[in-house]
């Protein structure tokens, strides 16, 4: 079954997260007076803005951080929210894209590496559900892993959505018409669309080749304390 590339690019859709619920991934990394606060969570952009301050106060109180953090946290969240909202009015082109999502994260003592494909056009998709099932299936005991996985997926989807907005803008700008559209799509993250083409060509099967299995297999590692410390030290060095 051949899918022509031109007809696969649909009419532009209003920007939104390509998931069932329109939640924004928020990442916080604030450093004040020698104390560093790193966090990542999902936020519902339809919550009122007062919620931001409430959340900031709550977090500072719970984690016993110094009060300067309140304003910083609130500001950081607000910036990310406004950024998200700025994309909201715009169009994005969503070709029939199945994108690869890579997970490579460490949560406390659990190291997770995974690589799978995600359908960007499926607006019913739910990273939270995926994360829950993933943790259940892999028998992960640390309850903090679920949200981290969901967040990682969401973040990547968000990035891709932003890219597609940018590409939609470029298409509008470029005067080259259809040819240009195809070119633009294929150049910006459209490499994945090509994958799709390759995969579903009439003479190839849907079943993955055995030699590629190891790429797509999830790996869950439980680290010991020393390994955790070593990894943390390396991460700190990288970020500084």
């Amino acid at each position: 079954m051949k899918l022509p590339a031109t007809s696969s690019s649909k009419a532009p859709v209003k920007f939104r997260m390509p998931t069932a619920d329109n939640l924004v991934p928020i990442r916080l990394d604030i450093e004040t007076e020698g104390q560093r606060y790193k966090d990542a969570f999902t936020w519902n952009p339809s919550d009122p803005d007062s919620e931001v301050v409430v959340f900031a106060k709550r977090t500072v109180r719970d984690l016993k951080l110094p009060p300067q953090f309140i304003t910083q946290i609130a500001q950081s969240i607000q910036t990310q929210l406004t950024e998200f909202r700025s994309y909201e009015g715009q169009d994005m082109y969503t070709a029939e894209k199945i994108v690869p999502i890579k997970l490579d994260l460490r949560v406390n003592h659990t190291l997770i590496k995974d690589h799978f494909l995600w359908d960007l056009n499926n607006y019913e998709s739910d990273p939270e559900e995926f994360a829950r099932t993933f943790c259940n299936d892999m028998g992960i005991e640390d309850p903090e892993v679920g949200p981290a996985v969901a967040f990682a997926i969401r973040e990547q989807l968000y990035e891709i959505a932003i890219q597609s907005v940018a590409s939609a803008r470029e298409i509008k700008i470029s005067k080259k018409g259809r040819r240009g559209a195809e070119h633009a799509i294929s150049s910006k993250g459209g490499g994945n669309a090509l994958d799709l083409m390759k995969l579903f060509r009439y003479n190839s099967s849907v079943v993955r080749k055995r030699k590629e299995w190891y790429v797509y297999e999830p790996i869950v590692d439980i680290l010991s304390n020393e390994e955790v410390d070593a990894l943390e030290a390396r991460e700190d060095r990288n970020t500084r």
Partner: protein
Amino acid sequence: MAAKSPVKEPPGTSAVNPTTPLAPPPVKPELPSSSEPDVVNVPSYSRWFSFDSISECEVKFLPEFFDSRSPSKNPRVYRYYRDSIVKHYRENPSRKITFTDVRRTLVGDVGSIRRVFDFLETWGLINYFASVKTLKWEDKETKSSAASAESSSALKETSKRLCNGCKTLCTIACFACDKYDLTLCARCYVRGNHRVGVSSSDFRRVEISEEARSDWTEKETLQLLEAIMHFGDDWRKVAQHVSGKSEKDCITHFIKLPFGQEFICKESDSEDVDNKFFSINNPSDAVSESENVGATSPSKRMRLTPLADASNPIMAQAAFLSALAGVEIAEVAARAAVTTLSDVDDRASKGSLMRNTRQQEAGVASNGDATQNALARASVDASSLIEKEELDVEKAISGIVEVQMKEIQDKIIRFESLDLQMEEEWKQLEQVKNLLFVDQLSVLFHKSNARKNGDRTEENVKTDVS
């Protein structure tokens, strides 16, 4: 997670188990939770909570999950949040969990998680310790009492006294302990928020009357009454009409007026009045509750446990307000409540209740302890009634036991007599046997003689036989 939990409740009865430990509420408010590992304390106003279902209380307070406006917020997700938060807390009930702990472990958006967490916390399903001040009503109370406080002077001689427990100004009434030189505001006294060695009965009530500050002249009282007749419940207008008195003063003075006005209480604007009237209505509920529970013993220390119970907000409210309002009002209200209650029962118990109330009052008065109030007396009456019933039951049981014993004794006597009869018959039988043996012997003897003596023996036998 449930497998690791040491406070796991048996499934299926989870609706019942969390609340049964609370039917007699924890007496010592200093202990955060019970020492048994299988018991979790849940306040009685959260009795509806169950892992298996969603109650309408939850639907009301968290409508976002139930109005299907957003596809990811559905009851299933709500239950997932709620159950995981509660289980997380119950793994270690003596430790307070924070929202941040919880939200890191839950998959979902932090706004809704925070709302569920706050809901569970206000309803005492998590982070529930007897000494934690998280109840909404009590917060309102502290605000209103703090708002009415004036300048802060720490001298004991003046009418403004600072409480040793919570360092707030004491208004209206406070409790002083001369033994240890402590002063507690009504709230701390009710909560038992004093040092461990001090018992509630060591305190006496010291009234800080607002009337001492501002006397009500006849003219002002008249104005007040006029204003009330005109404006009814609008205390602002009443205060305006009465020159020189604030709203609060008007209301308090009105309540203290010596008619039966305190019982005619329906709507009113200010919170304060609501609460005062609520306290009058409430002791009736409180008394019925205490009668139903009936767990207090008549010892002097235990008499004040209804006051010291701060975990049930209704009871704490009633106790606090009755402590504030003074002995007379609370006494009158409780007496009214008690009479109403006893009308429901039959006349005999009503009479005895009244008698007991009077006896108890006499007993209390003779103790000279000014901190007794009608609530405590009513509970003492209830406990004495219960004792009487217990005695009756005991008597009845002992009567039954006696009767049974008598029956058994009679049976024993009969059997003995039967035994005697048997023995006698046995003896008779023996005798007859002996006689028979003798006869047989004699027959044989004669037989042998007869053979020697021919006919004579035959004749003898014949005569013997006949």
